């Protein structure tokens, strides 16, 4: 099958016997198109495992044949139906030949093994800015509430403070918060863990999604998240509970804060692409950076799931500050190892994941 088969070598005068080059071309190729169409119909109905093995082997050849037929038809034929049919056939074959190669499971595994850690390393400067914004918020919240406890109710919404505030005594904070009794498996691991997860996931995904708006809302959200944490720190410090509070918050906070900071970093990557499109143009830069950023957002949600389990289920079970610090240290070093893993391989395959 060569492309030259359909190109006439001489022109014929109009006469009772008509030989249209395009009609002749169609007669020669029609069988191959029908074959391709049958294989495509099979794949579209039953998936890539539908057709027989030899049909699958012929598929790329038939696809190229159809594409070359289309090129030829565009130059020699004016049959509208034929042209549209060939465009349609080539497109359908193209989508099968160049379809996604991985299943959802494989995609997820490669995301966990390579994509997510590589995305974190690639966005380290954006993540650093997110860390700084959060730190700024914590410091400001602590300072404001330490200086004037009225700030607490202004910074922390009532559903988050849950009755705690500047008026709470050390004993109250100890019994109803830091060393509150464990409420049993289902209430802790299912209900509480899940409500924490959903609440945090919304914050993280908002920090990520709002990167679209040049990153300003992302930074504000990160600072605000820090502010509430700083405010809590201040009222506990006032009652001499700094160490116990830090233990209580860090057991899950290591994972949770890291996740929110990563999601914020993802938002800043998008903001970077929107603000500074560089030489590829805004849309192309957004595509290139956006995929990396989504890995951060998605990974952050997974981390928040872990954080929710630790906070909702395990925190009150480990009722001593030393144990909590120990778990915090273990989780921190695990995350760090994970993010630094696969650096050599990651550099090469990060784009494919």
């Amino acid at each position, binding site marked *: 099958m060569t492309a030259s088969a359909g190109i006439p070598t001489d022109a014929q005068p109009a006469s*009772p016997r008509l030989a249209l080059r395009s009609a002749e071309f169609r007669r020669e190729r*029609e069988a191959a198109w029908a074959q391709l169409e049958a294989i495509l119909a099979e794949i579209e109905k039953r998936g890539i495992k539908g057709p027989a093995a030899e049909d699958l082997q012929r598929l790329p050849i038939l696809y190229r044949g159809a594409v070359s037929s289309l090129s030829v038809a565009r130059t*020699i034929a004016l049959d*509208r139906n034929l042209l549209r049919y060939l465009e349609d056939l080539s497109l359908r074959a*193209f989508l099968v030949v*160049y379809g996604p190669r991985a299943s959802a499971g494989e995609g997820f595994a490669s995301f966990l093994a390579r994509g997510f850690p590589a995305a974190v390393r690639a966005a380290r400067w954006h993540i650093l800015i997110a860390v700084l914004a959060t730190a700024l918020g914590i410091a400001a919240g602590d300072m404001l509430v330490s200086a004037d406890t009225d700030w607490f109710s202004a910074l922390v919404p009532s559903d988050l403070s849950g009755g705690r505030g500047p008026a709470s005594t050390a004993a109250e904070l100890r019994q109803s918060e830091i060393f509150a009794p464990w409420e049993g498996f289902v209430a802790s691991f299912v209900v509480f863990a899940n409500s924490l997860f959903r609440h945090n996931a919304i914050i993280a995904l908002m920090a990520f999604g709002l990167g679209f708006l040049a990153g300003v809302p992302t930074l504000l959200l990160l600072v605000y998240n820090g502010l509430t944490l700083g405010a809590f720190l201040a009222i506990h410090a006032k009652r001499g509970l700094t160490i116990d509070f830090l233990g209580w918050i860090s057991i899950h906070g290591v994972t949770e804060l890291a996740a929110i900071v990563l999601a914020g970093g993802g938002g800043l990557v998008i903001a970077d692409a929107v603000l500074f499109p560089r030489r590829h143009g805004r849309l192309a830069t957004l595509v290139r950076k956006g995929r990396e950023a989504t890995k951060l957002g998605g990974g952050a949600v997974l981390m928040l799931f872990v954080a929710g389990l630790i906070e909702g289920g395990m925190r009150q079970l480990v009722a001593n500050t030393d144990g909590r610090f120990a778990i915090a240290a273990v989780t921190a070093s695990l995350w760090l190892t994970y993010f630094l893993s696969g650096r050599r391989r990651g550099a090469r395959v990060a784009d494919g994941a």
Partner: protein
Amino acid sequence: MAREDTDRLAPADRVALLFDGTRRRTRALVTPEGVALRVDIAQRGERVGAFLLDVLFWSLATAAIFVALLIAGAGGMEGDVLTTIVLFLAFLLRNLYFIHFELAWRGRTPGKRICGLRVVDRAGGHLAAGAVVARNLTREVELFLPLEALASVAAANGVAVWAQLATFGWIVAIAAIPFLNRDHLRAGDLIAGTLVIAMPRRALAPELAEDTTDYVFTPAQLRAYGAFELQVLEELLRQGRSQDTRRLHAEVAAKISQRIGWPVPVPELDHERFLRAFYTAERAELEREQLYGRRRDDKDAARQRSTR
């Protein structure tokens, strides 16, 4: 103004405009072989339809799981435990649903399949798993989370009107994005580098050109028309036989005979044969001319050439 606009279109587009009333937005997708395939961009309405179908399927699946849990003896659980489990499963299910189907069915979810839509890579390459995940996770931020936030804020006795307004504004802003770009991309498509296209199924109709003909036309007669008129005639000849078509055939045959100066009136029963013969001869002529680099888009282009 409108006339000028239609003049600048390719003949094929003008035929579509004539017969369908509208012309879909198209975009060239360049395959790795270097051939540009013209794809029809999905209309916003079709995309909303496909999405609503998918939401319906997802809700049904969630409801089925809920019922299964109840039957399996979860009825003894406390209400909020059950709600939590169902909410979490719903969250998991909708993300798995979209991502799984768009990967396994090469860019189609059940809703998109019913509506004839497909997700493709904008640059014409492989649809990467990363792109599918990206465009679907973004939907979570675009729509589901704000909706949930709106519902939860509304449930919390309307303390924070500004928060409600902000989430509402967010949803409106996100919903506006597909109206602000020519490819109808939503935020997830922008980030993932994808495009949603419509896939009409076109069958290969029988060849219209004949091998032999009873009517012979002179080259001068065939110079009266261009590709646009030829393709309109093709569409007309491909229409099913009916009273209407017969009437149209008669009208068009009369018009053509008048324009090319056909000496005798075409007999009543012979209109279709005459038109097919003219179609064959005209197509032979135009295709030959096109091969020599003399494209003739329509009858106006034909007249200009003959007067020069």
